[in-house]
């Protein structure tokens, strides 16, 4: 056998669609040498009781995330625009279906 560098299998993030009509949701992670093995491992690990009808696996290293600090100024632009919410507007009480 050719020399293989003794390296850890990369980390994959797993997303499962529980049933049709719902979007894929992050369920956890696992290690696998390549994408097909990651899919098979994800099936055995996260859907042993019919928890899903579709699985995505994504190399964790390929995910670009917003700043680790989740209350970052990054999200500030949305904070002061209350007029984006329907509750911002005053409507006469007698108006229906609006």
């Amino acid at each position: 056998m050719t020399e293989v560098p003794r390296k850890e299998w990369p980390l994959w993030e797993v997303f499962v669609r529980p049933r049709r009509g719902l979007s894929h949701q992050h369920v956890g992670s696992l290690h696998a040498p390549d994408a097909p093995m990651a899919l098979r491992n994800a099936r055995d690990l996260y859907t042993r009781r019919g928890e899903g009808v579709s699985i995505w696996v994504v190399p964790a290293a390929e995910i670009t995330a917003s700043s680790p600090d989740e209350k970052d100024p990054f999200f500030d632009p949305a904070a002061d625009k209350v007029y984006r919410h329907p509750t911002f507007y005053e409507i006469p009480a007698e108006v229906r279906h609006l």
Partner: protein
Amino acid sequence: MYRNDVGPPVDQGADPGAGSDRQAEFDRQAEFDRQAEFDRQAEFDRLIGADERVEPRDWMPDAYRKTLIRQIAQHAHSEIIGMQPEGNWITRAPSLRRKAILMAKVQDEAGHGLYLYSAAETLGVDRAELLDLLHCGAQKYSSIFNYPTLTWADMGAIGWLVDGAAIVNQVPLCRCSYGPYARAMVRICKEESFHQRQGFEILFTLSRGTPEQHAMAQDAVDRWWWPSLMMFGPPDDASPNSARSMAWGIKRHSNDELRQRFVDMTVPQAEVLGLTVPDADLHWDGEHWRFGGIDWDEFYAVLKGNGPCNAQRMDHRRRAHDEGAWVRDAASAYAAKQAARAEQGAAA
């Protein structure tokens, strides 16, 4: 770890100026760091105080991170070591139905271990690192798995008592302050209830079988009862880290509280089984089932490595890891070959 979790390197090359300017700059930076540290701690305290969840990329105190890594790793190790006492009976299960059930259960334990290693990795450790710590004895697993499984009835007693105790321990962990651990526990608790019911069913069947089968069921309960009570850990006055874990929202109830809850739930179930628990002091005081003294010397002896199966469990784990190395290597080699071919194909 996501690819941008490690920020850009701090520019060390810039000349901050000479002499007093440099000192002033240094002081400003130190003051800034102090303030930032204070703000981060305040935000962490606010999250814990509001019973919100701490997520992987949030700042957290080092001690909180270390406590979680140790607890989650120990929990993960317990799941995979826990495959051994039951794996022991797969080939000797009394029917195909029982065999299929036992295999599914042992597979679940492997799965639980992987959910937990996955949760631990969000704290910045590698699964391989944690396995090394288990293999060299630096990290522990639950001492319950250092007892032998002598008869088929032990599969029943483990499911009913050991998994039953685990459920009582684990249900509050579904509300643990650390998000990934709490989410893993939700998944695990759902699956554990099948484990406990199948154990109960084994004992229920044996207990109503021949006199020999009934005796076998009673013997298993006699042997597993006390070690199951020990699973909740030392009594509250001898559990030094409990208070801090409770303040952090990692632990929600004290060891003794959970132990009492388990006894109260389990004693009436024993009655339904037609079996007794081996405790002459057990009595109902109008509110709770009060139980006799636990042999803590035995608990600490097993914890220190002197239980009946400590050496056997560790030997088997290390051997399984070493003998599985070629599978991991082969999968890596195949992945590398496919990647190289894809690259060649793209170049051509």
